């Protein structure tokens, strides 16, 4: 890279941001000067249209295309529900669906619980920032990096060799036999889930910590005066006050969990009965060149998220009623 390239790239960033700012500025400027009649619609369009266009082309169109693909074979002919039948009859499909369900139950639950507990325990403590950074750090590591990190934890070596995996070193140190953590189904799925929890707890922790700090001190003090103990104050005052944040955290982590495939792909490649739907979808659509099967799995994934969406919609509706 030459210096000219570097300057060119800095210029590109500035230009890109400037053009973007100019477009947004112009949109809002003209929207404000729209004719009185129908100004509301102009304003609405100004705020929503850029997003709507991007989402329409970038996500809605692909989603529709995927859905139609799910009912077609490799040649593009309509084959009805065959791809779904495949997903629900082949061991590969069934196992991945089962595992995805386990993942989406355990990961949000545990990472939110641990993140919340941690946030409460370190709240207002000395060194809170350091504490937070330690648990947040996994979020800043790419999945490729996380794969290597956990290799040093789970790696298996024969009983006669030096263990290079921490977990097996502990086990053999205590006199046990080394265990193949990632090969013994069904426990290996749980060891992969641990990695995802390790990553997501940081997210839950920072969001919930902020929410806890938003709980009015007066309320907690009032409860304190009433003679409640710390646990009661936590369940009666803190939890209700941060319920909104809890829902957001659980929702976000659930969706991220259903979509994650990097962890499985880098650590077991879906072998040993550890595959999840997102990983199987990737394998079928790209490696196996079976776009239809991949699309069918994508649709199944979408259906798995529906309950989460519906739950959030209900909350949203309630909020609107309050207002």
């Amino acid at each position: 890279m030459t210096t000219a390239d570097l300057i060119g790239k800095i210029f590109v960033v500035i230009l890109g941001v400037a053009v973007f700012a100019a477009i947004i500025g112009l949109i809002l400027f003209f929207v404000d000067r729209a004719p009185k009649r129908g100004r509301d619609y102009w304003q609405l369009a100004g705020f929503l249209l850029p997003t709507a266009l991007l989402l329409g082309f970038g996500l809605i169109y692909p989603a529709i295309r995927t859905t139609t693909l799910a009912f077609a074979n490799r040649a593009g002919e309509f084959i009805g529900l065959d791809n779904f039948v495949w997903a629900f009859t082949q061991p590969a499909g069934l196992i991945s669906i089962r595992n995805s369900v386990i993942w989406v139950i355990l990961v949000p639950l545990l990472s939110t619980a641990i993140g919340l507990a941690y946030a409460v325990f370190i709240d207002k403590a000395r060194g809170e920032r350091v504490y937070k950074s330690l648990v947040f750090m996994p979020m800043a590591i790419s999945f490729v990096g996380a794969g290597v990190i956990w290799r040093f934890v789970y790696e298996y070596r024969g009983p006669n060799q030096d263990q290079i995996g921490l977990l097996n070193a502990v086990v053999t140190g205590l006199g046990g036999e080394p265990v193949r953590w990632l090969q013994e189904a069904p426990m290996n799925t749980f060891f992969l889930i641990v990695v995802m929890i390790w990553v997501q707890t940081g997210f839950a922790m920072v969001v919930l910590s902020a929410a806890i700090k938003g709980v009015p001190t007066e309320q907690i003090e009032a409860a304190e005066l009433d003679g409640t103990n710390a646990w009661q104050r936590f369940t009666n005052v803190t939890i209700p006050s941060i319920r909104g944040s809890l829902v957001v955290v659980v929702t976000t982590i659930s969706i991220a969990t259903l979509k994650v495939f990097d962890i499985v792909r880098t650590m077991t490649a879906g072998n040993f009965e550890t595959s999840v739907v997102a990983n199987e979808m990737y394998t079928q659509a790209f490696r196996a060149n079976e776009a239809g099967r991949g699309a069918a799995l994508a649709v199944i994934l979408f259906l798995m998220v529906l309950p989460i969406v519906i739950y959030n919609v209900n909350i949203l509706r309630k909020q609107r009623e309050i207002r």
Partner: protein
Amino acid sequence: MSSVAPADLPVAGGKGELELDVMREPKAARVKRRLTSRTATVVALVIAVLWTIPTFGLFISSFRPEPLIKTTGWWTIFENPGFTLENYQEVLFSASGSAPQLGSYFVNSLVIAIPATIFPLVLASMAAYAFAWIKFKGSAALFVLVFALQIVPLQMALIPLLQIFSATILPWQRQVNELIPILPDDSFLPVWIAHTVFALPLAIFLLHNFISEIPGEVIEAARVDGASHSQIFFRVVLPLALPAIASFAIFQFLWVWNDLLVALVFTDGTADTAPLTQRLAELVGSRGQEWQRLTAAAFVSLVVPLIVFFSLQRYFVRGLLAGSTKG
């Protein structure tokens, strides 16, 4: 109109609305205390240690020579001493290619991540504002649709998006380049737009949670003063939502910085536009045999996200994403 500046919001006077406290700086009542109890201290310590050990092991390993990494545990560093900077040297200054090129990839990562953080944040705040404060028919339904779009798997959207780009942006870019020859002819536009598209649903969902919690009185007051939506957005909503926006900025930056999949498809894969992650993935070797190099690589790529986290961390404290106190 200027009366509606964030500094003199009429709401700070204790109207009793809970969510307002979220946005206020913690008051004197928040004195530093020790952890709530001894058990809490112990549990927090245990969690902190458990969460750090894996990364710490990687950190130690990154300074060990390859044969030792592959034959002995990192915790035996004192029994099997061996210290080397070779892993870092290989990653940073690897002789592969005609010159050490990590610098280019590093710059590319920044060139990709900065706009790809700004664009979705601005668009998402606008959309979130529209969903929260502009009343229109079908608002709820549309919002649910946006929310549900979060689940469209990235992999499924790659091909259609690339087709659209090939048909529109690339020819357009070529024309622009002919008009203004000083512009680099490598385009970051596709990768910016791709990241923006994929970030929008979650960003809108999270920011909407925050923006819709802004008390109606504040917005009403501005509206009575004759402010337009644009003015309210810029002068009331943006300043109030800044903590939430900054918090989301951290996450979005992290996601873009650590992304490999989008980069593989929308950059050209060379030092011209490809980000750090792509270069690091290559370092593993064509048959995955050099994975020990990633020990150092993981830390190199960790530096920037950590800087961002430390510098924006304060915004987390000031109330984040869902400042919601309603159930």
